[in-house]
């Protein structure tokens, strides 16, 4: 028996079963749900519309085949491949912004023989690999300015390419890399600032800039007034007051001048400022009806009415969670959330156990991207976040997304398995 064969055997043997089974479960659940969302109750089995479900089956097949190949590759291969993979998809992602097909307002697809290739989905994987590659040495310190700059641009370029494609949703996902950097020792200040900015942003949009500014100044005044050393406290509080006011001003400016009318409308609907169930709020309203009408146990598989009869738009892609909420109810929805929670925790746990930093950073990257997708997607369908069209990982219909997430999971499993065999 050759060394390669032995290694392969042990890699398959030591692959993390809970994570792999969870991944398989998600893929199958996605297939079933897509079948249900295109299911036509008036047709029998032979004439049943199942085009998208069959295509997704093919995508899942390709993903699994890819994972088998990944598992047989040398772990160091991914480290070496990272820059190339990143650059190829960055290039494609920029290219697609100019020559791609436009679907739903975003120019994000290459059309290849009836299938659409979305480079942006693969670029997420590329960026994770690239970040892990840059931080692979244990000695690399995040405090160093040069690595900070490099990381900044590694994330910035994809974001710019996605904005060029008008794919704001995917661009937003890159914010999740802050979690990775936080784990790798970056000061939490940036994240704290981000959360504070979010709170101020919502306040500003919900009321107006004067009220948010008033709240900031009022709180600062109280803080200063109650302090024993007023002058020093005042000076220190300026470091909060000035950025806060800048945030408020820029949110107001961005809302009025940068955002497209439809994006503004989506935000208004989300914040409850306008009640527009026919127009911009239609998607969310229908989505809430579908999920809300599911009740405790749901209407049963293939029995959903809102999703089945096309009331919910994009139901097999971005709004696939509606079908689950409607057909499997509260219990089904919670079980799905628990499954995702398990996957995220498992990845974080496995990441911490990685012997090398590449593996750990990679794991965190995967978890962050998955988390961002889950939060934005489900948050949208249950009306907590604005309508931002990104897929629900491994469930939504879509080849690029399905395969890209498959590759992410495959590499994660390969890196982890290598750790256990000690064979890397």
């Amino acid at each position, binding site marked *: 028996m050759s060394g390669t064969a032995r290694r392969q055997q042990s890699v398959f043997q030591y692959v993390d079963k809970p994570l792999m089974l969870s991944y398989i479960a998600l893929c199958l659940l996605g297939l079933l749900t897509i079948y249900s969302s295109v299911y*036509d*109750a*008036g047709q029998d089995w032979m004439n049943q519309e199942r085009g998208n479900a069959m295509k997704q089956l093919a995508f899942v097949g390709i993903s699994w085949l890819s994972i088998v190949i990944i598992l047989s590759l040398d772990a160091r291969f991914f480290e070496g491949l990272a820059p190339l993979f990143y650059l190829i998809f960055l290039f494609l992602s920029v290219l697609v912004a100019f020559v791609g097909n436009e679907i739903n307002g975003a120019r994000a697809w290459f059309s290849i023989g009836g299938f659409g290739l979305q480079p942006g989905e693969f670029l997420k994987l590329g960026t994770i690999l690239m970040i892990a590659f840059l931080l692979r040495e244990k000695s690399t310190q995040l405090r160093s300015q040069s690595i900070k700059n490099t990381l900044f641009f590694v994330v910035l370029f994809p974001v710019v390419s996605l904005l060029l494609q008008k794919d704001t949703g995917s661009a937003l996902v890159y914010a999740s890399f802050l*979690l990775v950097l*936080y*784990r790798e020792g970056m000061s939490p200040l940036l994240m704290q600032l981000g959360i504070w900015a979010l709170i101020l942003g919502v306040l500003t949009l919900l009321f107006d800039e004067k009220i948010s500014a008033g709240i900031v100044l009022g709180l600062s005044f109280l803080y200063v007034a109650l302090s024993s050393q007023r002058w020093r406290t005042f000076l220190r509080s300026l470091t909060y007051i000035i950025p806060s006011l800048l945030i408020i001003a820029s949110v107001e400016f961005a809302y009025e001048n940068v955002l497209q009318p439809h994006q503004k409308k989506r935000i208004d609907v989300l914040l409850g400022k306008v009640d527009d169930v026919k127009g911009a709020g239609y998607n969310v309203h*229908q989505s*809430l*009806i*579908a*999920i*809300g*009408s*599911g*009740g*405790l146990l749901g209407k049963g598989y293939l029995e959903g*009415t*809102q999703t*089945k*009869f*096309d*009331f919910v738009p994009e139901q097999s892609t971005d709004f696939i969670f509606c079908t689950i*909420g409607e057909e499997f*109810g*509260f219990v089904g*929805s*919670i079980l799905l*959330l628990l499954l*995702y*929670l398990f996957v*995220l*925790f498992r990845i*974080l*746990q496995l990441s*911490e156990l990685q012997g090398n930093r590449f593996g750990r950073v990679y794991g965190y990257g995967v*978890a962050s991207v998955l*988390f961002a997708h889950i*939060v934005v997607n*489900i*948050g949208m369908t*249950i*009306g*907590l976040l604005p309508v931002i069209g990104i897929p629900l990982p491994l469930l939504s219909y879509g080849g690029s997304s399905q395969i890209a997430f498959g590759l992410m999971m495959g590499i994660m499993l390969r890196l982890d398995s290598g750790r256990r065999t000690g064979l890397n």
Partner: protein
Amino acid sequence: MKFSEEQRVLQISIIVVFGIFALRLFYLQIIDDSYEIWSRQNSVRREIVYPARGVIFDRNRERVVVNRPIYNLMVVPRQVKTDMDTAAFCRLLGIERKTFEERMNQIVRHSRFKPSIFAAQISVEEFAAIQEGLFEFPGFYAESRAVRYYPRPVAGHLLGYTGEVNDKDIDASSGYYLPGDYIGIAGLEKTYEPYMRGLRGIRYRYVDVHNRVVGSYKDGTLDSGATPGHELELSIDIKLQEYAEQLMRNKRGSVVAIEPESGEILVMVSAPGYDPNLMVGKARTRHYKVLSRDSLKPLFNRPIQAQYPPGSIFKPFQALVAQQLGVVNPSTRYPCGGGYRMGSHTVKCTHVHGALDLTESIQFSCNPYYCWTFKNVIDHHSSGSPPSKMYETWRDYMDQFAFGRRTGIDIPNETKGVLPRNAYFDRYHGKGRWRANTIISLSIGQGEIALSPLQMATSMSAVANGGWYYAPHLVRSVGSGDDKRHFRGKKFETGIDKPYFAVVHEALQRVVDAGTATAYGKIEGITVCGKTGTAQNPHGKDHAVFVCYAPRENPKIAVAVIVENAGFGGVWAAPIASLLIEKYLKGEIKRPELEKRLLETNIL
């Protein structure tokens, strides 16, 4: 296992976010049930299944009124493609482009989202052609309704018509009617509305976002089918009705024929009439307007609403009542010198009859005979009662023949005619200040008396039967099979003893055989008993009246014919009644010249 502080923070963040999601889901799916209601409103369409209205048959089970499907072409403007091929669509419907644009603008002003009727009342034949091409035009679809159809365009007045309910009907129905429902508005459709309307059904269907039906809700377990309305079987003989209407063409007036033994109305014509198919659906309002402006008043239901002084046809009834009161007997004679003189005024007679007996007085329609009779009934009765009291006694007998009161026919708006009570004359002339001569016109069926053609035919039935009759009615039975309910009018006794009819029967036969109606009344092989009359018309030429029944031995049909402005009853009214009887009893006409002359006559 050792966790880094950063990992802890991340784990807690994830749990917090998922926890918020779980709470939100709990709220949406468990606590707030408004989404379930929204869901049903969204995808379950409650469709009304309109019941088929009861079909109407005639006495020979011929279909008189049936239901005919029609289509409304509906449009939901929002679903109409902006780039639709308008020219092709106009060709399909056979309309002008301008019409299309005007109609669309009108609809859009009303609503973009709600279905509106683009074209109403499209017949099945027309729609078949349209349907083939309709799929190319999203936003347009057909809705089917049923409207009434009359295979023979006759009997509109008695059948009535249906139309959409108004707000008053809806309020009064305590929930039965909904906007858009049809209701009987006139005639039998109105009287028998509760039987014929049936019961609405409800059907729940799943619809998709394009409002297309995709299946039944809960496998139809909540659906309730529509219960069709009950059928009606009329006493009308629709073929005879059609024949009578043909005879009355280009004439104004009425024909009423009743089967004496049952009170069943065989024919009831109001001329001029109209094609009941004009009173169907959306076109009804337009046609109604045109008909209501017609100077010939085709909408006026003459047999039950018009009233005429009966003239000489009143004489047989005078004869009957006077016999019952013991004033005259068959051998009583009164002198006729060409008139009945009272002071300065004379009631003229057509001839100088000399002294006729009772039979001859009817046969030759002698006016003075009835003036004397009436005078003796009212003024000189052996009971010694004052004229006012005697008038009331006389009036009570007349009431038994349905004079001055409604017959009780089963369609609305019947007139009761005119025949005042004594109180009226007390008011008019003063109490105790009037006598027979004051109201002497009544003796010959003029003055304060007016009868509807229906009352004339009804009273003829009573004569034919020898003293009794059933209130005339149009419907024999409602429903079918085990649920069949038979209808029959109330039975009335006139209070005139049967022997007194013998002389009247004899006289009426002689009128036709050798009297005033000889020329056109006689039918080979049938003994017809009848009486001519001339209803005085202060506005123009007198109206011709003829009442009769046949055969004398076993009366099967009693007829009243009024031809307005046609002069003497024997010339125009008698032949129509005669032809009708011949047709009914023999099934064919042996007098084609007479028939031809009547069909071609125009006395408008």
